[in-house]
């Protein structure tokens, strides 16, 4: 339907309060179709709150969420998934005592008219998804219990779930934390594959080098508000981005909203 580069998600002046704590103090963010957006920020900057707001887990205290040009209200996890936003949460959001199949279809079971689960179809689809992301093994199968899997394998289950519904936008919250080098490479290959299929990825990470490698554009938040955003071409390299973020952390400039990174070559 829509072309690559058009806005797919628009957050308008999102404020989120928890009691007296203002976790997000008016964030406006535009995500464009087909891009990989790297979301950066210090611990406590509000990354996770922003992700959970995108995923519908937190309803914003005020502000508007637009997806594909329509305002979405009410906003909750089911609404987010129906709008085509799938999230791989930092805690994976798995059900450890249940099978890979049950986890892949959590909240989105394949059912018939009476609400009965189509077990055969679910196993077939789970098998297909696991193969698609290169997630196969001799030691586990779709009926294996998730609690017995390793961290990387659990991440695979969460990613398979995000893929199932052919979502337009896939949000990955710190997907490489606690993963081995090969598992991290797998996640990167997965992001490349998703991008190649024309879908949008929002990638959140601590490790700026990881985020740098994979993203087309960066969105940096600091103390609950957007600090700056810019395309990869605006920066000399990952070190330039790190330098800017360090500067941001030290000065904590409140007017960072209007801050634009210096032109290429002006970094030194």
């Amino acid at each position, binding site marked *: 339907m829509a072309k690559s580069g058009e806005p797919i998600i628009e957050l308008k002046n999102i404020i989120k309060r928890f009691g007296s704590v203002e976790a997000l103090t008016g964030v406006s963010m535009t995500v464009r179709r087909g891009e990989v957006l790297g979301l950066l920020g210090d611990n406590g900057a509000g990354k996770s709150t922003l992700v959970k707001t995108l995923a519908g887990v937190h309803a914003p205290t005020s502000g508007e969420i637009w997806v594909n040009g329509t305002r979405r209200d009410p906003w909750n*996890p089911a609404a987010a998934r129906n709008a085509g936003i799938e999230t791989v949460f930092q805690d994976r*959001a798995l059900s450890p005592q249940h099978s890979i199949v049950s986890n892949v279809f959590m909240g*989105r*079971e394949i059912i018939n008219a009476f609400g009965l*689960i189509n077990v055969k179809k679910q196993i077939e689809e789970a*098998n297909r998804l696991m193969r698609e992301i*290169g997630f196969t093994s001799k030691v586990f199968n779709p009926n294996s*219990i998730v609690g017995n899997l390793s961290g990387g394998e659990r991440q695979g289950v969460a990613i398979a779930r995000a893929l199932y519904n052919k979502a337009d936008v896939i949000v990955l919250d710190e997907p490489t934390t606690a993963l081995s080098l090969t598992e991290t490479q797998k996640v990167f290959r997965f992001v490349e594959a998703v991008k190649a299929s024309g879908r949008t990825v929002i990638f959140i990470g601590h490790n700026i080098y990881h985020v740098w490698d994979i993203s087309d554009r960066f969105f940096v938040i600091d103390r609950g508000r957007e600090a700056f955003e810019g395309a990869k071409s605006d920066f000399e390299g990952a070190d330039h981005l790190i330098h800017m973020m360090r500067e941001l952390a030290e000065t904590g400039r409140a007017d960072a909203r209007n801050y634009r990174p210096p032109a290429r070559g002006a970094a030194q």
Partner: protein
Amino acid sequence: MTHTTQQSNSAVDSRREQSTFRRFYGANGRAVNSALAFVCVWLFFASQNWPLFTNPGFYGSFLFSVPPSIILATALVFVITAGEIDLSFPAVIGAGGGLFMTLLIWGVPVIPAAMITMLLGGLLGLGVGAIVVYGKISSLVATLGLSFFIVGIVNFLAQGRNLEFREAVGTDGNLFFVGKWDIFGLQVPNHFFLSLVWVAVMYVLFRYHRFGIRVQMVGDNASSARQMGINVEHVRVGVFVLTGVAGALAGLILVQTANMVWFPLSGKAYLLPVLAAIFVGGTPVWGGVGTIIGALFGALTIGLIPAGAVGAGFAGFWTEFIFGIVIIATMIVHRFSGSRVS
């Protein structure tokens, strides 16, 4: 995504590497162990008095009294699996039985009265569930309080009197519930078959229906379930509605097995045996997983003990002692049914 093709079949192949038995035990270990526990308890009693325990006539009263426990235990598996507890079901049994009798006295035939009673039992469960879930109260405390509250209202309405309606005994509707079939000398009451139908429905609901699957997801990790778009509150209220219906059904069966006599405290005796039946049946206390078939065997085990102990020649006051032994022993057996993974 071409990098995966070289290993594309292994996800399928690995399914064949586990033996059929191991896969079956892996998925149904709790139910299998509960069945084994039932057989062991039966063998223990039967070995004391073979002629009595191989005589079908001995089981008539057992089959007559056990169905309410079966119905309640299988319904409560949903509550325990959802990570909640419902202590108000004995009060709902009393309220359901009283309502059913009142309807009969007003001239409503048995079957429609039973349907109305179950419907109102569901509404009562809805109220209990709504208070627990939306009031954000611990279900242990809330249902304890509501249990007293419901019993109080029932006592007030009944003014402490029993209700009787002998005219309904022997009507078609009454026989639908408590009519007996003679099968090779074994007197099987119809409500035992009804309880097996109920178990079948609960089994399908728990394992193959979206509601049951979501109950398990919510009980295992409620925040994961919420993040994946499951309406956790609706699921939690749903399990209380189900026990409400089960409580009403048990109550209306109970008054019919007592020849259409209801007394306000009927149901009170079911609290501990039914909870014991669920846990003897292999549903763990931590939530997220459970077994309906296990609860069936749990209810049969608990139901067998009083009659079995007497039949085996123990004096009646040994019954509770044997309850204790069986509960502890089966809990140890269920250590091998699988411990919690996280």
